[in-house]
């Protein structure tokens, strides 16, 4: 592992609070990376749907005169990733690059992994069924099958 990619998710639709699972996997990846002298790329993807919703809400508030465009959204996503890293990795000695993207999650994971030459992927992808069974979500399944390198998946 030289440079690992960690995908963090928000517990809300406005990218304020990370999920507990995202914090846990960031910490896990940070500790592993620090142990082997690897770097981390922490990314967050804002979906097209969330972007559209926010854009609509903000444009309806004319008096605010805020500009919420594609660049603002990507910067916001990057800030979200940076916040998670700051919160969770404060005591861990590891080099971190926060990245934000807007669009479809699996597609963005592949492009960022390629751009930053990441060789290990960390995702939170297992959900619990009503009976408590650990089940892979569609995104996790697709990434596990197609990512060229080890994938670490934790239960959300």
């Amino acid at each position: 592992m030289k440079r690992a990619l960690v995908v963090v998710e928000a517990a809300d639709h406005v990218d304020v609070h990370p999920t507990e699972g995202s914090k846990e996997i960031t910490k896990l990846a940070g500790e592993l990376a620090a142990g082997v002298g690897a770097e981390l790329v922490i990314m967050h993807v804002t979906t097209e749907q969330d972007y559209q919703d926010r854009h609509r809400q903000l444009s309806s508030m004319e008096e605010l005169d805020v500009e919420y465009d594609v660049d603002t959204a990507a910067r916001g996503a990057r800030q979200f990733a940076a916040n998670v890293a700051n919160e969770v990795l404060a005591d861990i000695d590891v080099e971190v690059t926060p990245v934000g993207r807007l669009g479809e999650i699996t597609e963005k994971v592949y492009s960022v992994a390629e751009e930053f030459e990441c060789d290990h992927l960390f995702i939170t992808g297992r959900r619990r069924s009503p009976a408590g069974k650990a089940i892979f979500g569609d995104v996790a399944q697709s990434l596990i099958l197609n990512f060229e390198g080890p994938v670490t998946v934790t239960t959300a």
Partner: protein
Amino acid sequence: MNNAREYPSTDAGPFPAPPATIEDRAGRTVELELATTETLDGLVEMYDAFDPAQRAQGIPPSDPERIKPWVATILDGGVHVIARHDQSVSGHAMLVPDGGGAFELAIFVLQSYQGAGIGRQLLEHLLGAGEAASVERIWLTVERWNTPAMELYRSVGFETVRADRFDLEMAMSIQ
């Protein structure tokens, strides 16, 4: 789980309802009965004794301390039938509400009671209890390697509805 799941158009059943007394293939007299909150301790005991090698999809939890909270959570709703022999619980089958009007099925039989026909009886009586509780749609996921379980589910009326995921998804309709 998403709600896009398809269910078989034909209803399976009817199924026998608990309570019932059966004799398994090893000659043991087994009671099949509805679980109550009082069954909690007996169930925890069974899951504590469950062979970790036979855990499927993360349940029962591997951490002993998480077994009781897990059992308490699932017992909180749905339909639960247990198999009892000599005062201890040897099997547990459940229909857990999924929040979308359908129920997830899961079944466990303690290792020393496996291969004696208890699983099928437990399953059929669970479906009978489900009918009595007005359950209509049931689904489950099963690991692809687990052919004996898939055969058992198929034999009582489950059909494979999704095969493009790691875990196979089966569903059935009753009533």
